[in-house]
Structure formats: C-alpha cells, structure tokens
C-alpha cells in the first residue's frame, strides 16, 4: 500500500469496475468511489509520513519502460515538491466523493468520470515522465466537460463547459508543444524528467533557444492555471460545475500548470526563466490585484470564489517568478494550501446551494443562525482566504512576499495589498452578506449538516488547512532541499553549469555560438535529424 501506483490506480481501477457494474446497483457506485478514494488517501498519508524529510532524492520510485523507441517510461516517484501535492489531491478527492451525496441522477457515469478525473490528476503529480505527466492530466479533460455539462448548473452551463474545455485544451496543447520541443532540444531521446534534468544540467540548451521554449511552457501551463489574461474560464467554469468537480478542478487539477512550471520549466530552462521572470512577475499582479477587484463586484458566490481562486494562484506565480528559495517554497506551500482552501470553499458553497437553491448573494443573509457548523467553517475558510495566520495559506503567501521582495519590491508591495486588503474586502463582504445580518424568512428551513459523517469532508479539509498552517515545517522541510536544487540551477549562469564539459574555458560570448549541434560533442550531433 505504500506505493504510488496504488494511489493512482485505486481510483482508475474503481472507475473501470464501475463501468462493468450494471446501472441498477446505485449503492455500489458510491461505495466503490468512497472506498477507492479512501484507500488512495490512506496510501498518500503513508507516503507523506514515510517520506524521508530533508532529502532531495526521489523516493518511492517505480519505473516501467513503456515506449522504448521514444524514451517514454511509466516512472512515478515523489520528492519534496509533489509529496504534499499528492496528499492534497488525495484528501480533496476523498472529500469530493464525500460531498457528492447531492448527486442522485446517473450515478454510474458520475462516479466513473469523477474517479477518472481524480486518478488522472494524482497520476500527473506523481509522474516523472513528461509524457505521462501530460497524459494523466489530459485524462481529466473529457470528464470535466461531461461532468459540468450533465450535472452542472446555471444558465451559462453550456457556454461554460465549452469555454473551460477549449481554454484548457489550448493551454495543454501549447504546453505539449513546449514539452516536445524541450524533449527534442535536449536531444537525449528521453521523456524522463529525472534523466533530462541531469543531462541538461551538464549540457544545457542554448540560452537563446530557452528563451523561445520557455514562453511556450509559461503560457501553456499559464492558461491551465488561469494566468491573467487567460483567466476568464475559471470563475465561469467553477460557477457552473457541480460541487465535487469544482473542488477537484479548482483545488487539484489547476495546480498541474503551476507544478509543471516548477517541475519542468524552471529547472530545465534556467536561462529562459531568467529572461521571462519579470514578465511573469507583472502578469501575476493581474491575477492578484485585478481578479481581486473583479471578485469584489461579483453577485454570485461561486463567481466570487472562482475569481478569488484565480487571485490566489497569482501568489504561486509570483513565488515562481521570484526565483528564490523562499519564493518557490512559498509557491509550493500556496499550491497545497490553496488546494485545500479552494476545495473547502467550493464544498461549502455547494452545501449552501443545495440547501437554499441559490448562490446569489443578493438573496442571502443571516444564514449563520441556521448553519452554525457550515457557517463557522465557512467563516474560517474565508478568513483563511484572506491569508490569516494559522491557516496554511499564510505561510505560503508570506514566504512568497518575502521571496518576491528581493527581486521585485514594487510587485511585492502591490501583491501584499492584494493579499491583505483586497482579499479581506471581498471575503468579509461575502461573510457579511451571506452569514451576517437578519435571517430572511424564506431560509427558515435551511438545515445544518446533520451528523459527523456529513461534516467529515469539511472537517477534514479544514483540519488539513490548520495542520499545515500551524506547522508549515511539515511541508517546508520537505520542499526545501528540492527547491534549493532548482534555485541553484536557475541562478547558475549557463557557462558555469557546463563545468564538466570541455567548454569550460570558453568565454561566455563564445559559448552560445558553439552550443549549436555538430560543433560540440557527440551527444548533440544527433539533435537535428535534418
């Protein structure tokens, strides 16, 4: 059970089983889904607990050759960066299945697709092979589309499904082109991230080429994470999605793009990231400030949460752009924290919607009276959303700000404004409108989560937020060595990193000229077939 494949395969196999069970056995579907995600969760906890903190090496590695001729292999492993993400993904997946109680129609398809989505994203986080990394992520595309379409809500549902699907596939395709180009430029006939990283450290890609490659990955992955100005799919999509899908997507799936940037783009293209970091730093202000402002104007709770989630990932972008140990560590913490937070907020808004039938803030008010538990959790979640210490978002955002200060003090100031002021403005406004004030009569019958079993998913997510908020070392100590490695690569000037090769004596100006194929060594000669 202490195996990554187990975590990934649990939901996928359960999805397969569900496909085979006749559709009359309604109860089987939900139980299977719960069981498989619970097993996944337990597996993820065991891996997280068994992780050797402080080591930058790969752990719990599993590798199977897949397509030899292309250098594709099924290679899963964890290091400090993804171990937290996998745990987060597993927790959210379990919680998402838990809150799917509201789904009554067509359960077979629902759970099948949901599990496919969950398995896919866990696989994407665990994969150390670029192909499988992408492959697993794309597994979720169609389920997302159908889940939102069939079980989604709202008048804009159709438009939202198509928007989210087209945006995501556009981003994924651009990223795919970037990944393939990276593979080809590296010229080592392998999609394996670990060996690519090693080989590219000794023999980096020509910096001029990196500058062309990096934006492909940046904007490709950026679209997947709703980087401004490619963000409008997110609020709309999440507003239309059924609760569990919004949780999984906003919480987990969206982190894929950020993870890709941290895992692939930054370490493998150090020169590229250096020349694009400034652009990214300013773009992420679009997320943090602009989307917060947009969130302030929303009348629909889900649109507000969607915009806030877009704003929050801006911090992860800023952390990446800072290229410092603090910033990148903060970015990873933000990713994990926001995963829990986004899932929690969407789960709660789903509960409110289920009870009241609307998420229009104009019709709300005073619900805390009727919903002491849900409302209390909601207040805490919203406070976590404005970066309150004690919740996992705070250490992440603080680290990002500290990190960003070194490179971009101006951006850091504006980002702090977004984090401390704007986030508080719209979050508190939502609390005020939703929970505070007199209770309108029509909500007199709204009921709180009745017993422990119903409270479990919310409690679980909140507990996770608090755990990592009070004790961020659980994450940071694991992340630090890996991020230190990445930062070292990103900071090292290209000429120095080639120390092992004969090019060491060349003056920096000459190095790029010689870095073209044919002129250097046997490895690069086969780079370009024609």
């Amino acid at each position, binding site marked *: 059970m202490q195996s990554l494949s187990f975590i990934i395969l649990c939901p996928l196999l359960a999805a397969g089983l569900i496909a085979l069970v006749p559709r009359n056995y309604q109860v089987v579907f939900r139980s299977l889904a719960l069981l498989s995600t619970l097993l996944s969760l337990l597996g993820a906890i065991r891996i997280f607990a068994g992780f050797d903190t402080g080591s930058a090496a790969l752990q719990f590695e599993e590798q199977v050759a897949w397509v030899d001729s292309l250098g594709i292999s099924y290679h899963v492993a964890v290091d400090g960066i993804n171990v937290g993400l996998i745990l987060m993904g597993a927790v959210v997946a379990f919680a998402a299945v838990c809150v799917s109680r509201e789904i009554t129609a067509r359960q077979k398809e629902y759970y099948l697709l949901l599990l496919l989505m969950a398995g896919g994203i866990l696989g994407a986080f665990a994969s150390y092979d670029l192909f499988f990394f992408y492959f697993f992520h794309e597994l979720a595309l169609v389920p997302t589309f159908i889940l939102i*379409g069939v079980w989604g809500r709202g008048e804009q549902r159709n438009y939202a499904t198509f928007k989210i699907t087209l945006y995501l596939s556009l981003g994924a395709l*651009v990223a795919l*082109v970037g990944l393939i180009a990276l593979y080809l430029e590296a010229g080592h006939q392998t999609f394996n991230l670990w060996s690519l990283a090693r080989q590219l450290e000794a023999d980096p890609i020509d910096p001029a080429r990196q500058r062309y490659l990096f934006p492909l990955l940046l904007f490709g992955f950026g679209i997947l994470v709703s980087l401004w100005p490619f963000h409008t799919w997110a609020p709309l999509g999440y507003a239309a999605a059924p609760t569990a899908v919004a949780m999984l997507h906003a919480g987990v799936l969206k982190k894929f793009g950020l993870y890709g940037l941290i895992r692939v783009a930054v370490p493998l293209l150090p020169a590229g990231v250096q020349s694009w970091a400034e652009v990214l730093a300013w773009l992420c202000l679009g997320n943090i400030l602009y989307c917060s402002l947009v969130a302030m104007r929303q009348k629909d709770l889900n649109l507000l949460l969607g915009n806030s989630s877009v704003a929050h990932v801006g911090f992860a972008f800023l952390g990446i752009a800072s290229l410092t140990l603090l910033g990148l560590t903060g970015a990873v913490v933000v990713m994990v924290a926001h995963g829990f937070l986004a899932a929690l907020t969407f789960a709660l808004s789903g509960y409110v919607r289920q009870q009241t039938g609307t998420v229009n803030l104009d019709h709300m008010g005073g619900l805390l009276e009727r919903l002491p538990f849900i409302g209390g959790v909601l207040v805490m979640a919203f406070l976590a959303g404005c970066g309150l210490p004690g919740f996992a978002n705070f250490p992440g955002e603080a680290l990002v700000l500290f990190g960003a200060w070194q490179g971009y003090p101006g951006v850091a100031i504006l980002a702090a404004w977004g984090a401390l002021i704007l986030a508080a403005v719209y979050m508190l406004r939502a609390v005020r409108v939703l929970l505070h004030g007199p209770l309108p009569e029509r909500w007199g019958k709204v009921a709180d989560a009745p017993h422990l079993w119903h409270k479990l998913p919310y409690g679980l997510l909140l507990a996770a937020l608090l755990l990592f908020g009070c004790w961020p070392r659980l994450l940071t100590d694991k992340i630090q060595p890996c991020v230190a490695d990445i930062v070292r690569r990103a900071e090292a000037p290209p000429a120095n990193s080639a120390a092992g090769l004969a090019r060491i004596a060349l003056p920096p100006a000459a190095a790029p000229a010689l870095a073209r194929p044919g002129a250097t060594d046997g490895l690069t000669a086969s780079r370009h077939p024609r």
Partner: protein
Amino acid sequence: MDDLILIGPELAVLITGLAVLLLDLWAPPSQRKTIGYAAAAVLGVVFLGTFAFLLPEPRMAFGGMLVLDELALFFKRFFLLAAGLVLILAVEFSDRLKAGESEYFALILFALAGMMFAASANDFSILFVALELVTIAFYVLASFQRHRTRSLEAGVKYLILGALASGFLVYGIALVFGLSGTMNFTRLAQAPEAVLSSPLFELGLLLVFVGLGFKIAAVPFHIWAADVYEGAPAPTTAFLAVGSKAAGMVLLLRVLHGAVPALVDRAQPVLMVVAALTILYGVLCAIPQQNLKRLLGYSSIASAGYLLVGVAALNAAGLSAVLYYLAGYLFTVLAAFLVIALAFPNVDSEEIGALAGLHERAPLLAAALALALVSLAGVPPLAGFFGKFLLLKAALAAAGGTPGLYWLLGVAIVGVVISLAYYFGVIRTMYWEPHPPTSPSSPSSPSPPCLAVPTPMRVALWLCIAGMLWLGVMPGSILNLTDLAVQSLAPAVPVP
C-alpha cells in the same frame, strides 16, 4: 509462382468477392447476411495470413511493378481490418439497401483488392489501375441506394469529380513517363538530375499529386468530400473515409519517397501550404454543421491535413506518425460510423439533434461515439491523441530546419482546439441536450424506445473501442510496426 504468392492476399480477396457474387445466385435471400459475415470472416483469416510473410527485405513481383515490403504489409493489414469491419457494418445496413446486398459486399471486396494493390504499387500503371479499381467500385457503392436521390447525387458527383481528377492523374503520368521514359518507381528514383529538374516533369508530378490529393481529400481537391460523405450509405462513407484516404496516402508516400526522393525537399512548401489550408478548411466548415455524416466529412478533410503535416515533416518520425495516425483513425472513424448506422435507423435524417438522449436509449452507442469523437479530437487516453502527439513531435523535430513548419504547427493547434468545439458539441447533444420535441404523430411516447445493438455490431464496436484504447495507452507495439514500415519504404529517409 513466387509472384502469385506475393499477391496471395489480393487474390484471396478477389476470389472471395467473386465467390460472394456466385453464392448469391443460389443462396436464399434470408442467407445473404450469412454471406456477408462469411466474407468478413474470410477477411479475418487473410488478415491473420498476412503475418505469415516474413520480410527481411522488400521483395519485388511482376518485374518490379509490385513490391511487398513492411509498408505494403502494414497497409494491407490496415485495409483488411477496415474492410472486415465495414462488411459487418454493411450486413447490418443491408436492410436499407433495398436490393443487391451481395453485390454491395462484393464491391467492397473489389475496392479492398484495389487498395491492397495500391499498397504494393511500384509502378505508375499499377498505381493507376489500383486507384481506378477503388474509385469505380466506390462510384457504385456511393450510389447504391438507388431509391434515394441523395445517394445517387453523391454517386454522380463522385463520378464526375473523380473522373476529372483521374484525367489530371493520367495526364500527369503521361508527362512523367514522357520525360523519364519509365513508369517504374525504382527506376525513376535513379533518373538523371536533368530530368528531375525539368519543369514539365515537375508539372507531371503535380498533376499526379492532384489525383492523389483528390483521394485523400486535401484542399483544394476536397470539394467532393462533404457532399459524398453525406449522401452515400454509411458503410460506403466509412470505407471511403478510412480505406480510400489511406490508399491515397500510401500512394503519395510511395511516389514521394519511392519514386522521386530527390525532389521531396522541393515538395515540402507545397505540402505545408496544402496541409495548413486543409486543416483550416476542414475545421472551420465543420463548426456550423448539423448533419453528423457531413460533419465527419469535414473532419476527415481536417484529418487529411494532419496527415499531410506528418508527410511535410519529411522525416521518418513524421511518416511513422502518419501511419500511426491512420491506424488510430481506422478504429475511431469506424466506431463512429458503426454508431451512425445503428443510431439513425431512419436513413434520411442524420441530424445531430436526433442523437439527443442517446445515452439513455443506448448507453453503449453513446459511449462509443463519445470515445470516437474524443479520439478524433486528440484527447488522451485514446488513439487520436497519440497520433497527434507523434505528428507534433515529428513536425517540431523537423521545424529546426524549416521555420515554416512552426506556422503549420500553430495552424494545427488552432485546428485541434476548434475541432474540440464541434466534436464536444455532439457529445453534449448525446449526454445532456433535452429530447427534441416529440413529433405530433406520436405524442404518447415521451422518450424513444431503447435501441437494440445486434451482437456482431456489438463485437465490432468493442473491437473498435479496444483498438482506440490500445493505440492510446499501449503504443509501443504498433509504433514498432510503423517504424519498420517506414524503414522499408525509404532507408534514405533520415532516422532521428
């Protein structure tokens, strides 16, 4: 004798075709379906039989007019598999043909024989004859539902435009022959530089390209495709989409890399432009389509564009990707047409709207069509994704030397995204569009009855689904085959 063994599969297919015609004379009408299934079974046996060929190196037959190499074998297996599935589809469809079911089966077999010859063609005369065998069979296949004006119209349009393209092809062959003095690809490959650089020779080759481009439905020779796809009976359209396109493709590869390998560099810009236009035209026209078969017609135009991207990359990876893409396309398109044949019992309406609520009436059909469309769109874990992945990779690998390919890639990506919109539109219709308002004639039935799926069709569907998944998830084995095929085609093609 050796020669005959080498064309054994073709002969077997032809004999089966004749046998079907003969058996029809004696068999009672009720047994005609059995004849069809039997023919499909024979194709299955022949398919397995092709694995008996062990080819350490390519072998020539009939004085070098035919060649049997891994490429030919790959395509022969491809055509056999496609025809087998199409036959099953045709048997299911035979009730709607009204007359001459057995002739329909036989014509499929003859077209198949033509395709298989095309796969082995190493001479312009074989190229022409094989292609015409296919084309003429399709004239009839397309217009087989003589009681339907649409079917007839499709047949006549295919006839006139096909003949026009054949005219260009033949004239092109004449020019090529006239300047080089040979019809044989192998000998042509050794033609002196003076011949190759002559503009008239180039003109001849271009005219040949017109003929082949017509088959694979590349812009600007695509104009027939949508109409014929829409009008022809479903099995014909399926075979047209898969078989005819692949036949055109294999001949294009043979001519390009077998006959005039020295000129491929000069063909690249043409291929790139044509590929880009084809993709754009296909996806753009498909956006507003309401008719599923017509939609697939435009989609097949777009697919031709993607295939040409692989050809235009001019590297082994590109060719391998083309073959892989075609293999995935086979299962994908056939799955779609199997569903079309079953889900539209009323032949005159193939409107997408009629699919509303299909997931309730026939979950398997809905799932199969959804998978097929997803695969066409190129989303994991299905065959279409890996095909497109390989195409992108090949084009990117070649783009270092040819910056124009970057533009082509950009077009391809835009195309994929647009295509998602209309493919997913169909999925939406099937899964959550409300039922169309029930016709006033039957107000008592709120939802249409469940659709029954006959066992052979079920098997065929599962086969297609398995094929799509297999090619998408476990690409290794097929990739080895395509690599082998590409090596046998042109060892000169650089291997990355």
